[in-house]
């Protein structure tokens, strides 16, 4: 057969379930659920107020269903467990006290939490269902003044910082899923890099959903003070269940003068089976504020999992000369749907943004890029360059591009380019006649197509991402 056709997908290897005793609250959502979560976490009054305010706003809002290019059955918000935590000893002074079953789980996922065993120079916060179970290299980071801990600890230990920045980039009523998250978020990561500090190692959070009935609602807040620099990575997986699960996270980044935050994601949630049964609904709000002059926020994402992805990591370029970047590879296969892109809001003078998006759609999936570039009247000399390329594999998938460009300043320069193509028979033939197997040839072409994004990833992640793409499209040529 000479046509390029997707045959099978490599089995999702992270689909196992950890058998562990959990502390679970009953299904359903109401004001008492919000109060219960807050109580379980022993939160101060102001935090509960924040949650309740968000919950009340959420009640008044409706799901954004008319504009995204995705479709799914009604989500029953009363049929979700909003808090599920593995039972363990109250205090975990060291890793020795973490349930060995949990350690084994993360080891199996390729994230050893034992500092001797893991990748040197990467600190990990491991989140299991609703709570953070361990954070590595905390002490070493503290010596440099860098705070890296779970969100629960941050509320206890750094209330002033949390109070100052939480909800300042993504307000509680920003959108439906952000409001839901603000009401019921259970844990997440907190990073604070003080003035002038260059974080000595990569920080990373690994998210794992284990409970079949639960959703995951985590919150990440990263603050880089004047001249600080930090690189942060996140990864995620979930077991294979027939039921759809909701993941609604909120990520807020704040960069002050001359600060730089690099945020990388390799998203590999369970995508559902070939017919689209099961899988994670990944409805995420990510936004960074370049508050200071010369600040920079860079988003890099490799989206391969989830039944549905709905996320638009954005940059608010407020400080003069600030820079926003978005590099994305979104791969959809089988019945997956993705509506993802970015928003670059140019407010300050001479602000610059770059968007590079690569979409690959296979099977009968639907992959959309949706992005906004907005130049406000005061953004003298703003500059944007956008490139969105789509690759279609097989004749049943869809690739869409929806760029919104709104320019209110005449000194701005905005460029958008998009192309759609497929792996051509000629390219394949050329590689094959050089003795490269068909599968390696496809992998080579796809990796070449995504090269501009992969080279933005930290080294270990780049290798992982290339491998992941290879696995997803294995046996793709018949």
């Amino acid at each position, binding site marked *: 057969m000479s046509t390029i056709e997707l045959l099978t997908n490599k089995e999702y290897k992270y689909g196992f379930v950890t058998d562990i005793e959990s502390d679970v609250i009953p299904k359903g959502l109401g004001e008492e659920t919000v109060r219960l979560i807050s109580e379980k976490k022993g939160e101060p009054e102001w935090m509960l107020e924040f949650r309740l305010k968000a919950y009340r706003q959420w009640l008044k809002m409706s799901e954004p269903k008319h*504009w995204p290019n995705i479709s799914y059955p009604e989500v029953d918000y009363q049929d979700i467990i909003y808090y599920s935590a593995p039972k363990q000893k109250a205090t975990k002074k060291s890793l020795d006290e973490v349930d060995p079953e949990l350690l084994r789980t993360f080891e199996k996922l390729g994230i050893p939490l034992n500092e001797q065993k893991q990748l040197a120079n990467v600190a990990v916060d491991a989140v299991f269902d609703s709570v953070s179970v361990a954070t590595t290299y905390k002490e070493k980071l503290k010596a440099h003044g860098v705070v890296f801990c779970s969100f629960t600890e941050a509320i206890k230990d750094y209330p002033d910082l949390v109070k100052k920045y939480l909800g300042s980039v993504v307000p509680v009523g920003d959108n439906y899923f952000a409001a839901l998250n603000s009401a019921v978020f259970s844990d997440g990561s907190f990073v604070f890099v003080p003035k002038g500090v260059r974080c000595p190692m990569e920080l990373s959070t690994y998210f794992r959903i284990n409970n079949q009935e639960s959703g995951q609602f985590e919150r990440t807040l990263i603050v880089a003070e004047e001249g600080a620099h930090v690189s942060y990575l996140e990864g995620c997986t979930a077991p294979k269940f027939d039921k759809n699960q909701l993941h609604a996270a909120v990520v807020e980044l704040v960069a002050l003068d001359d600060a730089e935050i690099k945020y990388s994601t390799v998203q590999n949630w369970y995508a559902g089976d070939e017919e689209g049964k099961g899988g994670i609904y990944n409805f995420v709000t990510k936004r960074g504020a370049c508050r200071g002059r010369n600040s920079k926020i860079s988003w890099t994402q490799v989206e391969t999992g989830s039944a549905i992805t709905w996320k638009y990591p954005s940059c608010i370029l407020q400080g003069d000369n600030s820079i926003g970047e978005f590099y994305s590879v979104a791969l959809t296969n089988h019945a997956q749907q993705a509506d993802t892109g970015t928003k670059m809001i140019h407010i300050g003078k001479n602000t610059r943004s770059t968007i590079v998006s690569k979409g690959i759609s296979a099977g009968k999936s639907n992959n959309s890029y949706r992005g906004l570039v907005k130049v406000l009247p005061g953004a003298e000399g703003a500059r944007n360059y956008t490139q969105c390329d789509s690759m279609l594999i097989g004749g049943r998938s869809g690739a869409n591009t*929806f760029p919104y460009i709104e*320019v209110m300043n005449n000194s701005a320069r905005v*460029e958008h380019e998009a192309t759609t193509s497929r792996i051509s028979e000629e390219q394949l033939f050329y590689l094959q006649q050089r003795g490269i197997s068909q599968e390696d040839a496809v992998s080579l072409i796809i990796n070449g197509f995504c090269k501009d994004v992969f080279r933005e990833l930290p080294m270990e992640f780049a290798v992982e991402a290339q491998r992941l793409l290879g696995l997803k499209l294995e046996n793709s040529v018949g």
Partner: protein
Amino acid sequence: MSTAVKEKSIYADAFREFAASREGEPAWVGRLREGAFGYFEELGFPTTDEEDWKYTNVAPLVRKAFPPAALGRDEVEVVGVETFVSAEAGRSRLVFVNGVYSPEHSSREALPPEVTVEELGAALAGEHGEVLWNHLGRLSGERGNAFEALNAAFLGGGALLRVPKGVVVEAPVQLLFLTAPGETEAATFPRVLVVAERDSRLDLIETHASTADAEYLTDAVVEVFVGEGARVTHYKVQDEAGSAYHVAATRAEVSKDGTYDLTTVTLGARLSRHEIEVVLTSPGAACHVDGLYLVGDGQHADTHSLIEHREPDCASRQTYKGILDGKSRAVFNGRVYVHEGARGTDAQQSNKNLLLSTDARVDTKPQLEIYNDDVKCAHGATVGQLEEEELFYLLSRGLHPDLARNLLTYGFAEEIVEKIRFGSIRAQLDEAILNRLHARLEA
């Protein structure tokens, strides 16, 4: 909400009066009219909450509630109609003044007898009933917006153009919709149906203009059917009065190996909205959709286009360019939709905008929706100023900065202008561009 209901009821009275005055029409026209009005009432005027109208607020024109112009008014005497006529179409033109057909200004001399170029009212009553019954409202009916429904409800003024199989019409046909402002501000509803049968050729010039500045509404709908192997070249020149409102829809269907080329020129109107849809229904069909919008202080120009590739091996090219000056705003929304079976599709789209002033604003949204892997599709959009390097080059040759800027701006527009086949339209456009540029020099 209450205001919306009120607007509808204003048109309800006008509609009953209008419908009653149209006795003698075939029964199906009455039904079409009634159906359209019902649909209009159901839809209501669009609001900025709707994704398609996000950047264009029609509330100011809705508030005006312009009454239909054609209601029992006598024909207005106008002088100087000739200045609006394209030289190439001197003897092949239909002229409408305030929505009413004006026989003394029209001419069919240069047209072959087998070609039908007839005023719509006469065509509805006459021998062309069947062609009309088969085509009228087929493209603009259920797919249309509230303004199109209103146009169908007040259907009357306009033209039927039918070119029989194999006939090549040498002279371009001009349809001139002229507004000669009277005492009251009114709305006209021009309607055009073009049926180009197999292997025929037709050039059409559609002109909207005004003899003096006034506030009025033109709500136009043009439906074009391009038959197998036929070719229709359509120029639309919108040069309405500076205070006018212009809302229009152009919908075309292209059959096997047919070609539809549309070039739109947007110069006038305070608020204009042009909705374009070209459906390539059979293999080998092709279209070019080009446009130039030149907007100045206080103007808002919106173009929404959809090009649909339904079958294999169709090609589409779209180039839209805009020059914005003063406190103006332009909206471009271009959608290319490639259906699952449309392999071998070749589609390209580009939108380029030049902002000459600090108050100008552009919202552009080129979209690709592709459901087949064997396609070649690309789109691009830019917003910016003149290239510094090009400017530097001209300055280094000793050109005055103002002159250099004007030359480059003129060159930017020329990509669209030079493709226009008719000298009279090119001259009109050049004049409009140069006027704008000279105004800048003096300012």
